[in-house]
């Protein structure tokens, strides 16, 4: 004698694995429950958010050599704008978007700089946010990763070492290029060359006159300006002309939309000798000129 038994057929769920979920950054296909893109290591959460919220976020890159201050800048910017509500406001999309802000501010609050961003793309922090401006009716959706400076430099020297960087910069609407002003003023020309390399790389990446990098907004941000002469905050263009002549001329020649800005987060620094070497210690936190370059970028987009 046989007895009817009902067994749920879950096999149809396997169909989801057949349909490829495209990565938002590189467009490569991934299984639907992948955390990171198997092609470029970008978080798949960006893709899911874009699909569920029916928005197409724009991408902005904060790039510069290692130690230029990208992590501190992005962390500080997101914290400033998530507290401030008069000119501009940032609303984080997803819990992962707050990690960068949290880590940076926790370190600065104890007079320390945040840990160096690791070279592995799967360990980078991503910031997906909605930007509201007082004079703009519709908010802007933005994605900003905290790229590692060393990876970027490797990608510049050997293209396609980091596919994520290549794909991301190709799709970016605009770039915030960070340059260490304190080293520049001290006569370290290597930062001028790094910055020139980046601008040249961008222009080679997409050289179309209208949609390409020559016509996309680039804000050149002189970081650590609080360690330089105070005039840098009043006349960043003049500072660029004097201390980064190569970058100044390259921007003039190759970028139609560019602006020079000066920012500082710590008032003054000291050093601590550790086993790993000299460690920079911020003596106080007083952000200056953080919002202006970002505001300029968003207005240009």
């Amino acid at each position, binding site marked *: 004698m046989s007895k009817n038994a009902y067994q749920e057929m879950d096999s149809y769920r396997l169909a989801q694995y057949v349909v490829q979920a495209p990565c938002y950054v590189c467009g490569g296909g991934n299984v639907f429950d992948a955390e990171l893109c198997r092609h470029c290591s970008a978080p798949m959460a960006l893709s899911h958010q874009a699909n569920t919220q029916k928005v197409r976020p724009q991408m902005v890159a904060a790039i510069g050599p290692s130690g230029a201050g990208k992590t501190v800048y992005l962390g500080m910017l997101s914290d400033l704008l998530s507290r401030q509500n008069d000119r501009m406001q940032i609303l984080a999309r997803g819990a992962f978007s707050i990690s960068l802000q949290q880590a940076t501010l926790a370190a600065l609050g*104890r007079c320390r700089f945040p840990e160096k961003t690791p070279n592995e793309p799967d360990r980078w922090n991503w910031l997906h946010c909605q930007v509201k401006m007082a004079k703009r009716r519709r908010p802007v959706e933005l994605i900003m990763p905290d790229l590692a400076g060393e990876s970027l430099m490797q990608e510049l020297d050997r293209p396609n070492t980091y596919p994520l960087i290549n794909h991301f910069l190709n799709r970016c609407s605009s770039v915030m290029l960070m340059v260490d002003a304190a080293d520049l003023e001290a006569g370290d020309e290597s930062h001028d060359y790094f910055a020139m390399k980046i601008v040249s790389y961008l222009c080679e990446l997409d050289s179309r006159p209208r949609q390409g990098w020559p016509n996309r907004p680039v804000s050149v941000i002189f970081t650590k300006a609080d360690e330089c002469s105070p005039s840098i905050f009043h006349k960043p263009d003049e500072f660029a002309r004097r201390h980064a002549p190569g970058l100044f001329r390259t921007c003039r020649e190759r970028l139609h939309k560019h602006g020079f800005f000066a920012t500082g987060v710590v008032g003054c620094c000291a*050093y601590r000798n550790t086993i790993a070497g000299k460690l920079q210690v911020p003596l106080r936190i007083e952000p200056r000129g953080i919002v202006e370059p970002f505001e300029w970028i968003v207005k240009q987009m």
Partner: protein
Amino acid sequence: MTTIASTLVQRVRPCFLPLAVAAVGGVGFLVSWAAGSWLLAALTIASLGVAGGVCWFLRRRRVRPRSESSAGEPAVKEEVRSRARRAENAADESEDLIEEMLRQGRYALLLRPQIVGNLNEPQVRNALEDLEAAMALTPEGTVLLRTWRATAEHDGDPSDDHVMRVEAFYLDRYPVTNREYLRFVEAGGYEQMSLWDPDIWSGILDFVDRSGAPGPGEWENGRYAPGRDDHPVVGVSWYEAAAYARWVGKRLPTDAEWVKAASWPVGNGGGRPMQRKYPWGDAMDHTFANLWATQIGDTLPVSKLEEGVSVGGVYQLIGNVWEWTHSNFGAWDEAAKRLEIQGAMKSIRGGAFDTYFDSQATCQFQSGDSSIARKHNIGFRCCLGLCDLAPNFAEDWSAPGAAQSEGVENETGALEAAV
């Protein structure tokens, strides 16, 4: 020819009378000799001798100044009168100088023991009134100072804390304003080398404003921006602050003095004194201090934010601008745990309008900057030890000598380490 003749006349004129007498005498002698009268001849020779003596006397007088030779007794009176006039003028000048110094806010100089004796009663009263209005007294006592590691990195050991004894002192109620600093600039403060530390003599020429005129870095054409008279002066280095303090007869407060005035310690039976985290209490209130969270984004006039006043009546110790102190940065940390700094770094306290974290704007938090840094958010206020005032005033207000407790460091002794 004319010159020779006039010289001759000048030389001859003083002797004209005696010569005439001698000539008359000579003629008389010859007449009496001819007449045979020996007595008359002797008289004539005597008269010639007198005439010669008179001539010699007149020649001697000719060397002296004309006024004296011509005035005699009235000249002495004139001299007495001119001396009296000079003394009167000097008294007027000294009175004017005292008035000028009071107008410039340099009352502290006038109350110094060496100077106060030259003042009359109303002047002393005025100077004292100015002192009371502009400065607040902090009584002597102990104060707890924590290390930088403990306050900034939250990583300190309570055994590293210092309990210091501080003598009574006056602290400016308000930070030094643009208006006050302008008086110093206009009085030629940047040219008076005696006011400046010899270390910086070669660097004073670099202390210029945006237009290249001597003055704070945030000024232009030797003036501050309109409407900022009562805002704290910023863009001044530690050396400029110290020079201004010297000019007004004061000095910069030490770390211990600053913390004592702000946290107002209360003795704890010889143990660690109990202190406030902020001048108004232990909880932050953003309406009491101008910090980043207040969202003003600029300095405020020094008399604003009355709610944030300290127990002693000192305004804006927290927020608005960082304040230079006399001490070195990190002086309270153990030598092995001290941070490495480039050049001389001085201690600043209190936080500024752009200080982001509340934890970095407490009475205990110390930051530092290069002594030649001229930042947009660093100002200063001055201090005056009670012992620097004339004894008559100091005695009235000093507390009876407190016995030194065990484990309490004397600030004057520790000052050498800190400064």
